């Protein structure tokens, strides 16, 4: 019996390992190879290491790395200034409409960053929407380093908000309550107990925000280009997509970017695992949340302001651009027009095909990462195989991989003549890129819920003669479904708007929503670009909501 289980479980293990090596290992391997062998793309191993020294001595490299770090740190600081107060209030007080604020603060994940950046430009520049409505412009602000930081912070701060509110919610009340029983006043309890205990969680949120901001492409490409501010990601993109090409240079910069992100995640890991003195293993006991009292109005005003800036302004600017006939006509009733939407639905420039491509690719990505993620999580949590920690590492590694590096790696890997199948210049490239980048979501969510599931059911299934595959599909998957579904929805949402990898690996004859929108801006049709963004944001939101409602009815509760 045991031997049988062993044999039948061996297969999934091999499948999982092979898929991970293909998805995650291969692109990284080729980036490394390119760093070492400059002539790799021409099928030669000549002049090994020469570009490495040349590129490491390039003064631009120091400037780009410095700019990336400066941007990352600034975005983290500003995001923290916005998110920490909000998160603390959300976790520890009786905030009116708490769930609603949580939902609203998820929306920035759905707005593609480059759309948000353009929306801010059209709002704040001289004679922009803001000046047309309120009479003043923010031209100097939006076209400056501070402008880039603010726009990015409004996109990224929810990461810190959710990290802070959840950690504090778990840590906060109990110990502080004990302290208060022992005579400390609420402020002392907060400063001396709650805050120190939540520091690791907070730090993890900050480092994640750092990693996200150094790998962001859309905002630096949109706003940075206007003021000559370049970071590693835009530097890689330029080396890789402008003539004359500099693949070795792009690979070296990619490596630096990965190292920076890895460093952030290593710090995060170190901080979290240091927290041995805190007991967080049990379920958090409910605690009495603080009444806001007279503070409720300023607090609500702050939440409203932040949501307005992070969600309201970008969406309103997108709506305004998409529904005005001409930009020079401005915000006038007689300038209202649906012609940009009409152009979309008349399939101008292949708009509908782009929408269908993005939705199908996002669906397939969600399915692939969902299945693979569940399998990997199961093997990591339940099996006794040696090397399962490697599996775990490989599956979470994409968290530290910037999208642009994955794209570079995939191009280098598949644009070779020795493969028996042709993957390069097919939509499979997009699927590989999205799956690699988004795999960590299902793995994370599933392994968390697997740890809560008892093993008796599986044992019962095996005793009754079911093999691994059968018990996995019939017992575990249905039980994991709710949390797996949430992760897959997240994958769907992000994959349907991914920009930088799409720009680089989309095959000839195909467009995704993001490359279509980017193209419309490049071709001087901002109205059509914004109309498409709006349709895409609405479509994904509706699909996600519909699917969630539908699945609530069909699936058992977690």
């Amino acid at each position, binding site marked *: 019996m045991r031997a049988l289980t062993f044999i039948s479980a061996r297969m999934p293990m091999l499948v999982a390992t092979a898929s991970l090596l293909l998805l995650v290992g291969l692109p990284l391997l080729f980036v490394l190879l390119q760093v070492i062998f400059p002539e790799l793309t021409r099928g030669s191993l000549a002049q090994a290491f020469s570009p490495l020294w040349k590129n490491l001595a390039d003064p631009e490299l120091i400037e780009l790395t410095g700019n990336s770090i400066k941007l990352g740190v600034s975005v983290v600081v500003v995001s923290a200034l916005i998110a920490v107060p909000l998160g603390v209030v959300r976790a520890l007080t009786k905030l009116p409409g708490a769930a609603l604020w949580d939902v609203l603060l998820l929306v920035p994940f759905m707005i593609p960053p480059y759309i948000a950046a353009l929306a801010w430009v059209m709002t704040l520049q001289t004679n922009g929407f803001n000046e047309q409505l309120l009479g003043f412009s923010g031209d100097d602000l939006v076209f400056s380093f501070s402008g880039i930081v603010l726009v990015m912070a409004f996109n990224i701060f929810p990461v810190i908000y959710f990290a802070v509110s959840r950690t504090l919610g778990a840590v906060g009340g109990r110990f502080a309550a004990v302290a208060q029983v022992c005579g400390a006043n609420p402020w002392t309890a907060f400063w001396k107990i709650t805050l120190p205990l939540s520091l690791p969680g907070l730090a993890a949120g900050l480092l994640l925000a750092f990693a996200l901001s150094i790998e962001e492409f859309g905002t630096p490409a949109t706003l940075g280009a*206007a003021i000559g501010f370049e970071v590693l990601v835009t530097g890689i993109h330029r080396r890789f997509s402008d*003539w004359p090409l500099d693949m070795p240079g792009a690979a070296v910069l990619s490596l630096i970017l990965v190292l920076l992100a890895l460093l952030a995640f290593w710090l995060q890991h170190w901080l979290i695992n240091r927290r041995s003195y805190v007991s967080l293993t049990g379920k958090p006991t409910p605690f009495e949340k603080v009444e806001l009292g007279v503070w409720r109005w300023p607090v609500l005003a702050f939440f409203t302001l932040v949501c307005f800036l992070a969600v309201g302004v970008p969406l309103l600017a997108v709506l305004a651009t998409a529904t005005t006939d*001409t930009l*020079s*006509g401005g915000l006038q009733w007689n300038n209202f027009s649906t012609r940009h939407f009409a152009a979309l639905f008349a399939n101008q420039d292949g708009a509908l095909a782009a929408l269908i491509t993005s939705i199908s690719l996002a669906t397939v990505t969600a399915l692939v990462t969902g299945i693979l993620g569940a399998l990997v999580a199961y093997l990591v949590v339940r099996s006794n195989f040696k090397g399962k920690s490697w599996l775990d590492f490989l599956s979470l590694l994409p968290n530290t991989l910037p999208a642009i590096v994955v794209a570079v790696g995939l191009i280098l890997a598949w*644009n070779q003549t020795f493969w028996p199948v042709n993957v*390069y210049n097919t939509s*499979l490239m997009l699927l590989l890129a999205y799956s690699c980048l988004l795999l960590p979501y299902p793995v994370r969510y599933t392994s968390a819920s697997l740890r809560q599931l008892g093993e008796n059911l599986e044992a019962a299934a095996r005793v009754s003669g079911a093999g691994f595959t059968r018990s996995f599909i019939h017992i575990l998957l249905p039980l994991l479904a709710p949390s797996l579904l949430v992760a897959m929805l997240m994958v769907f949402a992000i994959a349907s708007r991914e920009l930088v990898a799409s720009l680089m690996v989309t095959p*000839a004859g195909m467009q995704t929503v993001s490359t279509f929108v980017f193209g419309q801006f*490049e071709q001087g049709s901002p109205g059509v670009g914004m109309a498409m963004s709006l349709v895409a944001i609405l479509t994904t939101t509706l699909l996600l909501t519909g699917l969630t409602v539908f699945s609530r009815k069909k699936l058992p509760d977690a």
Partner: protein
Amino acid sequence: MKILSFIVFIVLGSTATAQSLTVYSANPNDLIQTLASKFEKKSGTKVQVFQGTTGQIMARLEAERSNPVADVVISASWDSATALKKAGDLLAYSPAGAEHVPDFLKDSHYIAQGVTALALVWNNKSKTPKPADWGDLTHADYRRQVLMPDPAQSGAAFEWLGGMLTAQGETATWNFLSQLRSNGMLVSGPNARALNPVLQGAKAAAIGAVDYIAYNQQASGEAIDIIFPASGTVIAPRPIMILNYSKQPEQAKAFVDYLLSDAGQTAVANAFLIPAREDIPARRPGLADIALIKIDSHALEARRGEILNQFRKVTR
């Protein structure tokens, strides 16, 4: 199984390229989509388009050297065609209709499909006087009202700069630029989105803007004028070429023939480009209506680094 067939469907959808033609295009997107679908209907050959800037197209060709994909290239810069011919990558071909194309717009290996010019684009709702020449923009009326793309990032802006250097000479050009700069001119990113601030009225005028985009926007009601100064500007012929590693040269030739046919050239004219064939009327000022500066792009390209450095110094 369903998932598998879905994946297979998606993958096959894009690998079934054996009988299809792959075109890398720097054309306006709606133009190339129209041309591709009309050609498909006429010939039955499927056309796969990669749409990008000339820089992106050249980069992609280089990256794919060991494993080529493209059959036909439509570029926005004459230089790229010269470079590809020199590298031995092009197939010699003279399409039907070439006899109507003036000599300076064709070569044994490539031929212009259309021509664009670099214009001065002005928002006529701005409270500035209508400029007539580049030099007008140094006046106080245009303080902080002028924008130009960065020649380091925009091929068109570099050509415009080359035109100024050729027509006005070094000293005059650099003086002119430093005057513009002290008048608050913004040097901003690639050409692509340069017109956006002019449309919304953030700036009154853009220098060296690609004209067909502006004509398109004007046609859709934007309040802008497109001005070709009498002191001259630079034109950019947009060459088409067939790669000599194309696995379906016959279909590629048929496609190039189609681009130079009456129907193809009319589509070009409808996209507000100047058609390469003299016998097809343009919907905007043609070559005879624009004062042209002939530039030696090879000489300029050889001095690229030096010119960009000087530009940066002057406009910093």
